[in-house]
């Protein structure tokens, strides 16, 4: 269902979880556990959940062939938690990974939003959620 790797040198944590709506909760729970020691407030934790829900939702909506897994990385830092969310499928022809609505949502809850495109065609998004008020 999920695998987790942690690189102690950079504190980078990677999580690979089956790409289904039901498994988004696993990604959300992992994010909570990683963010809580960074003194995230309750509001910011729920913002982090919203951002992860949205990014995983876009993986499910835009992948063709369908993604088998969500691949997430979490990088804790002084300015909050930087998260990368990708699927391991391709992008549907003509689809945008972030449509205007999902971009609006992400911009409200996260900073430094960056679309990612790998040479093999996999797409995803990176964003940072700040911990405090």
């Amino acid at each position, binding site marked *: 269902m999920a695998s987790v790797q942690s690189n102690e040198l950079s504190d980078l944590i990677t999580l690979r979880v089956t790409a289904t709506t039901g498994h988004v909760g696993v990604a959300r729970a992992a994010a909570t556990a990683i963010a809580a020691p960074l003194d995230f*407030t309750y509001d910011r934790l729920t913002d982090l959940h*919203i951002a992860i829900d949205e990014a995983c939702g876009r993986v499910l909506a835009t992948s063709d062939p369908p993604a088998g897994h969500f691949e997430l990385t979490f990088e804790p830092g002084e300015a909050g938690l930087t998260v990368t969310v990708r699927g391991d499928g391709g992008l549907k022809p003509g689809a945008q990974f972030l449509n205007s609505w999902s971009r609006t949502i992400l911009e409200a809850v996260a900073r430094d939003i960056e679309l990612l495109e790998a040479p093999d065609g996999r797409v995803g998004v990176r964003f940072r959620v700040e911990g405090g008020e």
Partner: protein
Amino acid sequence: MSVQERHPQIPKPEVKELFRKLGETEDPEIRTRLIEGHLGLVEYLARRFAGRGEPLDDLIQVATIGLVKAVDRFDPDREVEFSTYATPTIVGELKRHFRDKGWAVRVPRRLQELNLRLGSVIGKLSQDLQRSPTVAEIARAAGTTEDEVLEGLDSAHAYRLISLDAPAGEEGLSYHEQIGGNDASLEALEDWVSVGPLLGQLPARERRMLYLRFFKGKTQSEIADELGISQMHVSRLLAKTLATLRQGLEG
């Protein structure tokens, strides 16, 4: 006409006497009199559980079951008043109702109770600190560990959402009725091309939450204050609404 007026409270000495007679005769009329004479207590206790997503009428019914059990089990030879004996039985019935019926997905009882407690702790801390609390602060105030708080917060997603047509308070007005009419800002939100038709189908309060959070940049705490509901409730409603929109856009 209030419950008290319909079914006047029975004077305490008479209660003892009626229970003694009931024990001797098992007369159903005496049993009914004792039940009806304590419906005021039932309503008083049921109201203490109002505003948690269950209609008051249902709570009164549940509490009445607790009262009937208490009447059937009370021993008049005990040195306690019936109302003292009945209160924990009625409250127990109400709590069991929330545990068994209030959760859409089976969540361990320990987490359900923790989750309900965290809701009030977060609300109080936000007031005291004038900002949203951290997990460590919530854990300290709730007298539990940070891991427990995280578990409790995650279990929130399993909580059944309150129907917007369900009565919200003692006045029996639904949330829809309390929210009021449209305002211009909501119309601006509805112009959003990709989701416009879906937004139109949302209840007014959900649209307002989306507008305040994603277009006005209000925090969930600020939205909770503005709408007079808890932060946890705002968080649940926002997550549910976004999931609904996501499903609608993809469908």
